[in-house]
């Protein structure tokens, strides 16, 4: 057999592959608001480019589907075009030889179903649906719609205090978010079309590291309105609402069940990720607006210190933002053993300053989210001998931020993936002695995620003295059950305005509405709640601050590598709860600022409705 071609380097393929890397980046950075049919058409064009030209359905059929889809896209087509297109896709799916053909048709058919309303809108009213239309990616992906290009430009001009106040215009937690925001803003950053997304969170951290948030004067409040609003829960969502209501001139009373404000930011997130003294800077600034009173150690609800009914009588409106405060339990044998704790309890104690001593102990953490990583890394800092994270699926399926997983591994945490909990073994004194797992194999996709099934392997035991369950949180909504609480999910059911369904003056937001989620989502909900409470009270108060945003500079089209924030050495940081992350240097920050393409100015950001 002649093998002369095998060793021959196919230069063109290599080049094409390199080009495709750019193509993939382009696709990944697809901006929000693009017409889904336009996206499908470009998919179809790529699919057709792959045809080998042998089979009719793929070679000729995909072209015709593409033509019909283009007519639909441009608003030129009627219903029969749509029907013919679907018909032809079915035939291609039926007849094409290989995946290049049938899978293209299959994906088109599925997307036609998914985006049926958009297709009908193109065909019947020759228009996209109302929500189609490009937006500035970072602003629109931020749940609080923070003016990100604006504050990056301010940082670029060394106006850190203005940057902090511009952030606070939409989000009064610039410091907390500088440390722990999951930065959805970076996801579709247009800079990725050139090199890589801007390190937006890193820049925010740089700003709050230059001047503490509580040293930046908050905007002046409106004159007093004489209206009083109660906030139940002093976490990120409740305090956000309090901040904006206070700026609008309303008197706010925050009822906090514990003895400090901050909610999960204080009691859920360990100090090494968000130092308490830095969190206090945001809280101090919020309270400095002047219209906020805090009542600590007061619980609200049926059977608590004050009932909701009492609040409704005493206040003009009530915002419930109680978060998701208890750990979910799992029904496995031995869960009642000594040494089994929920993640929330463990982290809560640490938040209160009661750091347990795990010296010489082996710790198992169950779960794959950020909370699991927080537990594992905290356990390391509590001097545990060994820490093992047990997770049912694969590392790639974990919901924790990759940087958190990486940090945990560096600190010596072992990941035991594809293992499901079976039971907890205990000794004669009812103390945990081991955690029994059942190996799993990754299986078919269900609901968009690969599922796992039992592997044909033996159960085994991980010996341990402590088990931390980090498998989710529940909302303690029982004391509020009269107020539209969903029985199954235990969440409050609200209108998009955050008003609790069926109630006039009760609003709710944050984790207690959408279940445990990110801090920025809770902040976003808090802002929406404040605006709607003001509106409900019969006002349309403005809360403007006059920050002149710098003129945009010419786009710097040079390709730069992304500046990543570094951590202190694992060896060192695993010994204490001191903050792990290093800040950006001045030069690094300025380089990242220069990269901003100012989508608020160039592109759709200047169009009506083009910001968020």
């Amino acid at each position, binding site marked *: 057999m002649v093998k002369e071609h095998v060793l021959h380097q196919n230069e063109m393929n290599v080049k094409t592959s390199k080009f495709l890397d750019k193509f993939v980046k382009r696709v990944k950075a697809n901006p929000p608001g693009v*017409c889904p*049919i*336009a996206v499908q058409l470009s998919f179809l064009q790529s699919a057709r480019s792959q045809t080998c030209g042998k089979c009719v359905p793929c070679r000729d059929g995909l072209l015709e589907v593409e033509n019909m889809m283009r007519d639909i*896209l*441009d*608003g*030129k087509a009627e219903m029969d075009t749509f029907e013919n297109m679907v018909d032809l896709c079915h035939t291609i799916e039926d007849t094409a030889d290989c995946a290049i053909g049938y899978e293209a048709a299959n994906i088109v058919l599925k997307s036609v179903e998914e985006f049926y309303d958009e297709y009908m809108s*193109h065909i019947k009213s*020759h*228009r*996209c649906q*109302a929500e*189609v*239309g490009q937006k500035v990616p970072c602003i629109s992906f931020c749940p609080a719609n923070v003016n990100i290009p604006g504050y990056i430009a301010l940082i670029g001009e060394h106006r850190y205090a203005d940057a902090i106040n511009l952030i606070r215009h939409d989000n009064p937690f610039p410091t907390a978010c500088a440390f722990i925001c999951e930065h959805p803003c970076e996801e579709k950053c247009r800079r990725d079309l050139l090199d890589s997304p801007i390190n937006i969170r890193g820049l925010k951290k740089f700003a709050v590291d230059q001047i503490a948030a509580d040293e930046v004067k908050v905007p002046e409040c*409106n*004159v*007093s*309105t*004489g*209206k009083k609003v109660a906030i139940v829960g002093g976490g990120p969502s409740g305090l956000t609402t309090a901040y904006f209501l206070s700026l609008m*001139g309303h008197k706010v009373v925050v009822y906090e069940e514990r003895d400090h404000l901050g909610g999960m930011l204080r009691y859920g997130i360990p100090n090494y990720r968000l130092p308490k003294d830095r969190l206090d800077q945001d809280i101090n600034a919020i309270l400095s607006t002047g219209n906020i009173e805090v009542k600590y150690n007061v619980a609200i609800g049926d059977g608590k210190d004050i009932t909701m009914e009492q609040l409704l009588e005493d206040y003009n409106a009530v915002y419930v933002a109680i978060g998701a405060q208890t750990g979910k339990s799992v029904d496995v044998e031995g869960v009642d053993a000594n040494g089994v704790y929920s993640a929330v309890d463990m982290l809560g104690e640490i938040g209160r300053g009661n750091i347990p001593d795990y010296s010489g102990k082996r710790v198992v953490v169950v779960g794959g989210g950020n909370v699991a990583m927080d537990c594992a890394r905290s356990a390391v800092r509590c001097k545990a001998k060994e820490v093992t994270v047990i997770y049912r699926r694969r590392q790639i399926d974990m919901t924790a931020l990759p940087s958190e997983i990486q940090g945990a591994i560096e600190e010596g945490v072992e990941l035991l993936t594809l293992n499901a909990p079976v039971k907890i073994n205990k000794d004669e004194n009812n103390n945990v002695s081991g955690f029994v797992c059942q190996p799993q194999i990754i299986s078919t996709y269900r609901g968009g995620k690969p599922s796992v099934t039992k592997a044909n392997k033996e159960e085994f035991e991980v010996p341990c003295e402590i088990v931390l369950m980090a498998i989710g949180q529940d909302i303690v909504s029982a004391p509020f059950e009269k107020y539209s609480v969903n029985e199954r999910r235990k969440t409050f059911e609200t209108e998009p305005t955050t008003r609790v369904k069926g109630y006039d003056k009760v609003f709710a937001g944050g984790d207690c509405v959408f279940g445990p989620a990110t801090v920025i989502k809770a902040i976003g909900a808090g802002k929406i709640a404040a605006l709607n409470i003001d509106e409900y009270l*019969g*006002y*349309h*108060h*403005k809360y*403007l601050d*006059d920050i002149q945003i710098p*003129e945009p500079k*010419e786009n710097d*089209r040079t390709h730069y590598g992304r500046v990543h924030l570094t951590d202190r050495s694992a060896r060192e940081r695993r010994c204490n709860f001191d903050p792990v992350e290093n800040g950006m240097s001045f030069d690094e920050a300025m380089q990242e600022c220069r990269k901003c393409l100012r989508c608020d*100015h*160039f592109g759709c950001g*200047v*169009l*009506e*409705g*083009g910001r968020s």
Partner: protein
Amino acid sequence: MVNVTIDGVKLSVDENMTILAAAKSAEISIPTLCYLKDVNDIGACKMCVVEVEGRDNLVTSCNTKVKEGMVINTRSERVIKSRKQMLNLILANHDIRCFSCGKSGDCRLQDLANEYEITKSCYASSFAKVPAKIDNPFLTYYPELCINCQRCVSACHKLAGNGVLHNTKIGTRTLIDAPFGENWKETECESCGNCAAACPTGALIVKNRKKYQVGKVKKVLTTCPHCATGCQYYLVVKDNHIVDVEPANGPSNHNLLCVKGRFGSFNFVHSPERLKYPLIKNHETGEFERATWDEALDLIASKMNEIKKQYGPDSLAGFACSRSPNEDIYMLQKMVRCAFGTNNVDNCARVCHSATVAGLAMTLGSGAMTNPIYDITHDVDCILLVGSNPEEAHPVVGMQIRQAVERGTRLIVVDPRDIGLSKKADIHLKLKPGTNVAFANGMMNVMINEGLIDEEFIKNRTEGFEELKKIVMEYTPERVGEICHIDPDHLREAALMYAKAKKAPIIYCLGVTEHSTGTEGVMSMSNMAMMVGKLGKSGCGVNPLRGQNNVQGACDMGAMPGDFPGYQKVTNKEVMEKFEKAWGVELNKKPGVHATDVFGEAIKKNIRGLFIFGEDPIVTDADQNHIKKALSSLDFLVVDDLFMTETAAYADVVLPGTSYAEKEGTFSNTERRVQRVRKAVELEGEMRLDTDIFIDLMNRMGYEQPHLTSEEIMDEIASLTPSFGGISHRRLDKGESLQWPCPDKHHPGTPIMHVGKFSRGLGWFYPAEYAPSAELPDEKYPFILMTGRVLYHYNTRAMTGKTPGLMEREGHSFIELNEEDAARLGIENGEKIRAFSRRGSIFTTARVSDKVSPGETWMPFHFPDGNANILTNAALDKYARIPEYKVCAINLSKLSEEEKAALEKEQEII
């Protein structure tokens, strides 16, 4: 300042300038297409690109600022090539059908294509045909001509401040979602057309453009004849026929216009219903018969002289037209004073802002808006808007308030109704109609108690504080809350917000004046402003938005029973002597009767002869039946008007006058700005200049009045009126913009009044106590009725009613009532119902919403098919004799079967 070089020219320019502006300052022209100064600088069309040395890429000059040392080339080969490419791309999807396009010859794209020598795009069109939006009677959107420059969208959002134009997508293309389709009447679009004015092509276009070609018309700069904003525009005249209106950059309108100005200000001029020759009523048949001018004028002169001889000069009276120019009004009052021999002269300010004229004259010394519109809507911290719905009654002021709110100005709305602006207001005090004095006293109570008053100002510049303080201390927020039906918290907040703001004007309108306590309401406004020292300063003041285009002028010109021109008092001996000397006649020393009292006097036979110039009191005045009775009681009635109005029908002689488009003159807008009115057309018919009619009549009645042109009349006014001393047509024609007082030829006019010192000397705090309205709801008439205007019409519709599109948008009587009341009475939205008061009964259509509070109703008074003024109460204010249009008691009922039948029959006849 920075140094730049543009096309080799070295310049030193302000660092905040764009490259485009810098080039313009050196008369270097850079082509633009999507750019619209201060409105749209999105840099989309790329026509304005330039090359900047040291920059890799071409730069859009419209939105790039200059920098020190910049070297710019605006016409390099690379730049030209790029511009040509852009034009090719734009033209590919622009349907080139210039022959049938109304903008041909005035199209920015056409200009550029010609300049860059592109007749046809080198690219094929990829445009999907989308149907045009054509149902709006004034405006059309042709998507195939749209180049997506966003100028219209920006104009709608940033200029008109209405925000109804949006972008919509079809795939990768953007379309403008123009609300001109089938449901145009249901949209929030005000048809102001500022979008069309911004469109560089024929895509979003005024339908009137179809009637003419640019270059074959003349354009006459003049002043809008509707409200008193005083918008400047050009009448576009083709073959002696006005076909369109184009905005001008006037100091009060800045190129903006409203639907009435742009579309409703010329159809009436050419209306076939115009009176064309004098008419004399044949008393045997009751019919009018055509007469010659000599017959008509001789008859008037002899009848008026006869009555004067038999019953004395004070049995005669004349009303001036507040829609006519200053010069006309001056001559009318001169005719009444010199030829009739009486001070019984008045104008329709009596029924709108007489309370302002009287009230502010008493407290400040001058009854007019203290600050210019621009000054109180740009760069102010807070606006206190009381009893004013400028979005409808003064739309171009409304647009500027919307702009201000958008920029962050706080807004306090005090109005019994939900008006458009209350949706944007920081606070809306939805007070009970007729409780303004209590509201203002409550505001001052808070200001005093919170220590927010300006003690320096009070001490140095005012008097009467202690007396007022004694009264307002009784008006606690709680008590005021009860009187006004408002939340005391809202009152406190409004007081703090207004008092603490650095720059905060009070803007008010007829919601304050049209009450039996209107003058005290007005004085309460000045009380508030004086108490916090917000007078005589930029961005502050007490600012009545005057109603008619020249109602300010009608008062200024002395069409008032107690005032000669310039508010010189009839009772002042020196003034009297001056006028007697100037006019060469002995004048009546007794102040005259107010217009609203003329009707009562007519019934009592104390007034027997009346000359009405351009007014229709049967439609506009309170208690229509009373007015009809009065007019029937007169011995002799003359009406000089454009149309056969309801009032004219009662006349003995009807004279055909001329409209603003057929004469020279001046209007004084609400901010005391005297602006030119210019003749645009000369129509067929025997209509005469009204000044000529008055001059002729004066001579026939025995007063020798030489013939004067409009310009000469203004010179006479200036010679006798200190505040107009420096105003002349010549100065205005040179482009000066003058606000009185303007005492001499070199004086630049006075934008802000009362700076340093009040016209009165010391400002006076008038001690006003709240008194309830004259007629309050009771068991029999349980609802309060308020009256007002809608955007699409002006007063009697004599002018706006001649524009079919305006009538299509809003053409019939309606009454707003609250949902709760409607539910209780079983009245559905859109149902025909009966509304009745002690004075009369009408049929009208119910509009059910929560715009008005329970127990309250609101009606516009424009529509004869259910005229609100049949119901209103002529209870008069003690100072200004203004009727209480804003409060009377009525009842509502569903129609009986007989009433339904009667109504149907009536409609058949119509």
